[in-house]
């Protein structure tokens, strides 16, 4: 087992085991912190795949942004007098677990059962000298975003803007509705 293989196994365990924990642990804050570990494992897997920019974007946006957003959502929706049941009842959990296990088994069967064709000439890019010679992929991603993927890039920009404005509008603090100030 080479060194990069060992790195893969470490990050794979970090990505999968906390996801398993999210399924079983009690307490929503614990789930959030387990999600942090899982996302960090995915960032490591991106780095292991040679996608440096993507790995650090994952850390910045997922761990630094989305997870903090989740923690804010938890804080704003947790009240002692509003009890939250952890799981759905047995009538929902049993079919749900059944469906989830079937989906997982199906995906595993596809992943393991297919001899995925890998081009021989350039398959192991783990060659250290080759990796050092290559330009960092950040520049390539920038070129791609500004040439091939310009239209999706702009669409996503507009989507993000609309989502931001919409979220701020939906979650705004309202004043108590009074009859005088009510908009008909």
């Amino acid at each position, binding site marked *: 087992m080479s060194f990069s293989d060992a790195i893969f196994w470490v990050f794979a365990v970090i990505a999968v085991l906390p996801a398993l924990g999210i399924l079983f642990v009690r307490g929503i804050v614990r789930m959030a912190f387990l999600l942090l570990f899982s996302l960090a494992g995915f960032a490591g897997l991106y780095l292991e795949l040679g996608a440096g920019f993507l790995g650090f974007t994952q850390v910045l946006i997922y761990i630094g942004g989305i997870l903090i957003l989740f923690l804010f959502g938890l804080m704003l929706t947790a009240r002692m007098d509003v009890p939250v049941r952890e799981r759905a009842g047995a009538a929902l959990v049993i079919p749900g677990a059944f469906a989830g296990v079937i989906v997982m088994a199906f995906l595993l069967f596809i992943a393991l059962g297919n001899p995925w064709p890998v081009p021989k000439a350039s398959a192991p890019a783990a060659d250290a000298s080759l990796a050092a010679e290559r330009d960092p992929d950040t520049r390539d991603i920038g070129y791609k975003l500004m040439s091939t993927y310009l239209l999706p890039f702009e669409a996503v920009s507009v989507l993000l803007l609309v989502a*931001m404005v*919409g979220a701020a509008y939906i979650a705004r603090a309202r004043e108590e509705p009074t009859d005088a100030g009510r908009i008909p």
Partner: protein
Amino acid sequence: MIATTLKLGLLGGLWESLGGVGLTHYLVVSALVFGLGILVILTRRNAVAVLMGLELLLNAAGLNFVAFSKYSAPDRIDGQVVTLFVIVIAAAEASLALAITLNIFNNLNTIEVDGARSLKG
């Protein structure tokens, strides 16, 4: 024939997995996390927990894009760009979904996903 395909395929995959890390390994990690995400979505009640399961799904899909991009076209990075879009859309989705959850909590005083049933058809 299906039986032989099953046997050869699964055994071949497992045998291959004993060697160096390849595309199959990433696909297996991604499949496991995707299945766990679906299980979280289907068995949890808390709306924020369901959103966490959704993030697991998006991450698993993104890992698949990057892994396929690296192993089937190593000199191209289109898979990485697609995963970048996935991350951005996940950010938009998370912010909107949390805003809606917050509104449901303020109006109905519950955060359970099956508590919002005042719009019964």
